[in-house]
Structure formats: structure tokens, C-alpha cells
């Protein structure tokens, strides 16, 4: 790798590092430029996949104005609608927060496991574990709200934790790799869900299609006023604080991080690596389960077959937030805004919702490759360039 000439580097390293400026560059400027670059590339994709606009570009030589103005109009309407759908009015903000809630919780789940050196691809299955448990408690019992709702949420946490603990236990006991076991458990959970939705325990009476009973009023997360946003978002934020506290202020959290940094050293220091794996996966699974429960008890109230499709996003959020709870929350709010805005964008600008998936991928790419952003915008690196490593290898 040819980087800057070494002598100049060394001289710079001797100077007292100006922390303030590098923090602004690293923490704010680069993520903003990453977001901007992702939106620019997303706009290019929109322009060149729209048949009418693309045709205008083929006759660019004859009529350059038409091509430019059509492109401008397309991108302007699309991003305008995206922004309005995400932040334009109280309803839009409510939708953004609703979409962010499960994202925060699932992102925290993956981030927590990353801290202990485990790659949790199983958020999707753990969400289903949480869904099944929370909905069972939600429609079976008849209790006052103050008792029923916490009980349903706890059930969701436990359901997810049980599903998450399996790969942790298998890894600790037999060394089975968690990437394989979590993927397999996702598909097992998916089939279990489909199975249960056809049994009389879960299926709504009088329905032939696999749709579950609705959870009782007393188990629902109360919403704020007339908006769909509910106490789920508060729950998610509280969990983010708790995860931060667990990771950075408790012995258990220290153990997780030690095992994640170097399992051999942690074992040598007398920590139980196996115990940490089981515990962290149970916690992570519980958070994913809570993501499912919060969505069920706050938004949908019933289950239908299929993945909720938060698993991929959860991995992305954990990476984008650099596995820090605060970072995950900010990233989840951004993704939630994109999710909420994309629906309005599809309605008004006829640009498919999937474009935001492209934009999300580009955001992660640019954020994960600060060197690339520096190169595009000609920002000089200060001091040693740090690279993030999340997972060392397949083997522990």
C-alpha cells in the first residue's frame, strides 16, 4: 500500500494531535459526506433507470436542456417527497419513529454480539421467537395494562433470548460456528412460525389464511395522541441506554468486550469464554425478540407468515453505528426516516421504494471506507489511519 511518504508522517505524529478538529472531521464531516455521496449515486441510478429520462439523455447532443431539466425534476421530486415523508409534518415524524423502533432494537442486538466477537446473522429468527412468545401472552391472558404489557414484552425478550442462546450454547459447547447456526435457525424459526399460524392456538378463529389472533388491548403499547408512534420508541431508547451501561459500566460488559477483543487472553485471565458466548447471545437474542414484540404490540397487533426483513438492516445498522449504542440509535433513526419517506416517494414520484435499499448500502459503503471519502473530497488524513475490524475471522 502506497500511502503518504513516511518521513512527513512521522513529523506530524510528533505534534500534539489536535483532537477537536479530527473529531469533527471523523465524527461529522465524513458521515455527512458519505450520506451526500450515497444520495448522489442514488440519484444517478434513478436518472438512468427511468426510461423517459434515459431517452432524453440519448438525445443530449440535440437538446441538452431537456435532459438536464427532466433529470433535475425527477430527482428533485423524489428526494423532496422522501424528505417530506420522513420529516415534513408530525405524521411523517411519527412514521419515522415507528419505523425506527424495531430497527434500533435489532441493531443493538447485532452490535452487542459484535462486541463479544460474534456475528449474529440470526436477528430475523430471534425476532420470530419474540413475536411468538409476545403474541401468545398478548392474546391469551386478560390482565390489567400495567401487568399485561410488561408481561408480554418480557415474554418477547425471553422468546428471543431462548432462540439466541442456542447458537451461543452450541458455539460454547461444540465450537459450531455461529454464522452457520444462526442462519439455519432463521429458516427453522420461519417454518415454525408458518406452522404455528396454522394451529388453533395461534390462528384467528374463522380464518383460513395463516393470520394470528389479535393481542388484547391491555397488551398494546399505548400510542401518543392520534399518531401511530407509541411507547415502543421510548422502550427502544431505554434499551439503548441499558446496553451502553451493560457494555461500558458493568463487569459482564467488560467480560463481553474482553472475550471479543481476544478470547485467548480473556480465558487466560480467568474469564469463562463459553459463559460469555451463551450470555451475550441470549442478551442479543432478547433484544431482537423485543424488536419483534415492540412491532407486534405497538403496530401490527397480529402475525402473518414471513420474515419481517429487519435482519439485514440490523447488521448494517450495527456496522454503521460502529457497534456503539448511540451510533446504532442515530443510524436506525436515519434508516427509519428513509423507510418512512420512501413510501411517500413511491406514491408521488413513482420511484420504487427499493431505491432506498440501494442508498442504504451506499451509505454503509462510504461510512465504512473513510479512505474512499477522503480520496473523493481530497481531505487529508491526520495521524495514523484507523481501520475498524469487527470480526477477526471465522474461527474464534
Amino acid at each position, binding site marked *: *500500500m502506497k500511502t503518504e511518504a513516511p518521513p512527513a508522517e512521522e513529523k506530524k505524529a510528533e505534534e500534539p494531535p489536535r483532537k477537536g478538529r479530527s473529531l469533527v472531521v471523523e465524527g461529522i464531516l465524513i458521515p455527512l459526506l458519505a450520506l451526500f455521496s450515497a444520495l448522489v449515486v442514488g440519484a444517478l*441510478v434513478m436518472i438512468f*433507470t*427511468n*426510461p423517459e429520462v434515459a431517452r432524453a439523455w440519448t438525445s443530449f447532443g440535440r437538446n441538452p436542456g431537456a435532459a438536464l431539466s427532466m433529470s433535475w425534476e425527477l430527482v428533485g421530486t423524489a428526494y423532496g417527497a422522501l424528505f417530506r415523508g420522513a420529516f415534513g409534518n408530525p405524521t411523517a415524524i411519527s412514521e419515522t419513529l415507528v419505523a425506527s423502533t424495531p430497527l434500533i432494537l435489532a441493531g443493538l442486538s447485532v452490535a452487542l454480539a459484535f462486541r463479544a466477537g460474534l*456475528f449474529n*446473522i440470526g436477528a430475523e429468527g430471534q425476532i420470530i421467537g419474540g413475536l411468538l412468545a409476545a403474541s401468545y401472552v398478548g392474546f391469551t391472558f386478560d390482565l390489567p395494562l400495567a401487568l399485561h404489557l410488561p408481561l408480554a414484552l418480557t415474554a418477547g425478550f425471553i422468546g428471543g433470548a431462548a432462540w439466541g442462546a442456542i447458537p451461543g450454547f*452450541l458455539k460454547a*459447547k*461444540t*465450537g*459450531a*460456528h455461529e*454464522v*452457520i*447456526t444462526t*442462519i*439455519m*435457525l*432463521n*429458516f*427453522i424459526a420461519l*417454518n*415454525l412460525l*408458518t*406452522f404455528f399460524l*396454522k394451529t388453533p392456538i395461534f390462528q384467528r378463529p374463522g380464518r383460513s389464511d395463516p393470520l394470528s389472533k389479535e393481542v388484547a388491548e391491555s397488551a398494546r403499547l399505548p400510542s401518543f395522541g392520534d399518531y401511530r408512534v407509541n411507547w415502543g420508541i421510548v422502550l427502544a431508547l431505554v434499551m439503548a441506554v441499558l446496553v451502553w451501561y451493560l457494555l461500558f459500566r458493568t463487569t459482564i460488559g467488560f467480560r463481553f468486550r474482553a472475550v471479543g477483543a481476544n478470547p485467548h487472553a480473556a480465558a487466560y485471565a480467568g474469564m469463562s469464554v463459553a459463559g460469555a458466548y451463551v450470555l451475550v447471545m441470549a442478551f442479543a437474542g432478547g433484544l431482537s425478540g423485543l424488536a419483534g414484540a415492540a412491532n407486534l404490540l405497538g403496530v401490527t397487533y397480529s402475525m402473518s407468515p414471513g420474515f419481517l426483513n429487519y435482519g*439485514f438492516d440490523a*447488521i*448494517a445498522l450495527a*456496522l454503521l453505528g460502529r457497534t456503539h449504542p448511540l451510533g446504532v440509535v442515530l443510524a436506525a433513526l436515519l434508516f427509519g426516516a428513509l423507510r418512512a419517506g420512501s413510501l411517500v416517494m413511491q406514491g408521488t414520484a413513482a420511484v*420504487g421504494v*427499493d*431505491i*432506498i*435499499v*440501494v*442508498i*442504504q*448500502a*451506499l451509505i*454503509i*459503503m462510504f461510512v*465504512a*471506507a473513510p*479512505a*474512499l471519502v477522503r480520496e473523493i473530497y481530497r481531505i487529508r488524513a491526520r495521524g495514523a*489511519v484507523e*481501520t*475498524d*475490524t*469487527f*470480526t*477477526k*475471522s*471465522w*474461527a474464534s
Partner: protein
Amino acid sequence: MSTVAAAPATSRVSIRRARVMGIVFMLLGLASAWWFGFGTEGGLSSSFGLNGRSAATELPALVLPSRESALLLAAVCAFLGAIQLTRGFGQRTYLVLGVVVGCFILAFLIWAARDDSLNMVGMLQSTLLRSVPITLGALAGLLCERSGVINIAIEGMMLTAAFTGAIVGSAAGSTWIGLLLGIGSGALLGALLAVLSIRYRVDQIVGGTVINILALGLTSYLSAQILSRYQNLNSPGRFPVIEIPLLSEIPIVGPLLFANNIFVYLMFALVIFINVALFRSRWGLRVRAVGEHPKAADTVGIKVLRVRYRNVMLGGAMAGLAGSYFTLGSVGRFDENMTGGRGFIALAAMIFGRWNPIGAFGAALVFGFADSLQNKLAILQVPIASEFLLMAPYIATILVVAGVVGRARPPAADGQLYIKE
């Protein structure tokens, strides 16, 4: 790798493991006797068809008395279990495990097909076809990881290639051009992964995740934007079945192995070729050296980064071939997210097969078999919820990975950044 595992053969752990294995054999025997033997009324028979799609010579179906055959297979399992418990099979334990599991599955099939018939060759045929993308995907992962770059983007590369193959194949009116550009699109994403992880030092798992999400987003967006409006861009046609003269007329084996489309032949050739190249050629030695100990490889003059770039792009091309199979070899059109997680199954097959082409192929066959088994059993109306049959391969994988494979050992430098000093 087996020599490493065999060294501490007399340790206490392996003795306990051998005992557990013996008990498992016995239990499988008992279970098949109980469910499949005594669970069948006497006097029924199971018939297995032995003719493929294109059988030149008609073979009579194999008819077995259901109850007696299942009991016989159960006895074999129990007998092998007894030997394992008393004497032990030592190094051949896993082979015997394979035999026992085979007997169990056969007993299950006999039970499932009691008073009915099951086309055996048809099932094996669909097993092979379903294992094609998984095998090729596993080879893609293996090419990258043997050189020290983790590739979890197989899924995304496959999906992109499936899309490219469909749209280019339709536009050009040629499946060959579709296949070529499908492979090319995979290689392009491989190049992206290589640039991100080698030049820009992005964490390899992150880079792979980016590609997966990007591929899912782009293909879904484009298919909604373009393919839904221009339906004629989504009918690339499929590669025809090529029957190899003479060989395809051999009963059972002929229709199974020698009457397939180009993807199946390519898969066989590539499994063998990569196995030889990786373990018997200079290129393979260099690749493995870079994956195990890049610094040592660099010291003897191997260009570590060049090897990694090349291998990741080759892996991308391989994933492109795997993805093209979906549109050009199997379905004949593109559907959103049509790979449906097979890239991840391929990843599992690669680890399951211990980063070894032949092993990965074997693992892919297991997935393919379970997949086609579930399909056939649904037709036989077996009184088991289809969801549990669908779950079976995944449960089996977990059991095998946890119980048999244990701590799979990846290339030592897998996933690690190499910075030349």
C-alpha cells in the same frame, strides 16, 4: 485436515465422543424399527421407480416389502451401533455414521412410500439440480477464503448475476451472452469487494454486507422499474439438456449424470479442477500460502495483494455462474430475491465441507437432497406438517456442524488485512 484430527485419537474426549456416536447409532436403529418398521402394517410394499425423465431402457420398479425392509435396515443400524460401543470403528467412524444415516433415511423413505411408489431416480435428479447453485456458490466462497478474504457476499453476487443473465440474455436473444455477462457481473462485484477490502481496508464482513444489500436493492428496484414494464426483457430462455450419446443410455446412472444442462457438467468439472488446482498446482500452493500466512508468502516473493485481488474476482465470477443458473438453467425468468438465501446456504456448505471443493460438493448434495425430499414427500402426502420437513435440512446441518465437524478450521489469515511493510 484429517491427519490433524487423528493425532489425539486416544484422548478422553474422543472416547466419549465415540461412545456417544455408538448410542446415536443404536437410537437411530431403534427409532427406525419403532416408527418405520412397526409403524407399517404388515403385507404392504413400497415401490421405487428407477426410470429418469429420458430413460432409453425401461427398468421395472424396485418393489420392497415395507415392514420387513425397514426392520432389516433398523437391525443394520443397531448392529453397527453395538460394534461401535464394544470395539469402535476408530478413524472410520464418520464413514459408518454416513452408512447409518443412509439406512435411517432409506427406512424413512420405505415407510413414506408404503403402499405407494416413489421415483428414486427423479428424486436423485432433483437433488443434483438443487445442489448446483449451492456447490458453485461454495466454490466461490472457497476461492476467496483460501486466499484470506472472507466473502459473505455470495448471495448478492448470485442475485445480481441472475438478474443480469435474465435481462442481457433476453435483450441479446442468446443464453450464452446472458451467461457470459452474468459471470462478468459477478466478477465485477468481486472486484468491488476486493477494492473495498484490500485498497480501502474496509472490514471484509462489512464489505460483503454492503454488496449483499446493494445487490438486493438494485435488482429489486430495477426489476420493478424495468422488468415489470417490459416483460419481454425477462424471458431469456434456458440452456437445453445435453444428452451425452451412449453414456446417457446407461440405466439409472445415465439419466442421472449424463442428461443434464451445461451447468451440471460445469459444476462437476469445476469441483474436480479446483480441487486439483488448489492442492496439486503451484498456483494452489501460493493461494493457500497467502491464506494461511501472508507474511511468509510475501517473504518468498509471492505478491500477496495480487493473489487476493485475482482470487476474489475469480470467486465473484464463480458466484456469477451460480447465480446465472437460477435464470438461465432453472427457472427461465427473474423474480425479486429469487436466490432466497441460497448464498448463505452455500457459505454453510463451504464451512461444512471444511474449505475443500469435494467436501463442499458433498455438503451441497445434503442440502439438495433434503430440499427435494421435502418436495417428494409433499406429493406422497406423508402425515408430517410440511414445515417440519422444510426444517429438516437446517436442523440436520446444525446437528452435523455441532456434533461431527466441531471446530472447523478456516485458513489462518482468513479475514485479516495484510499491509505490506
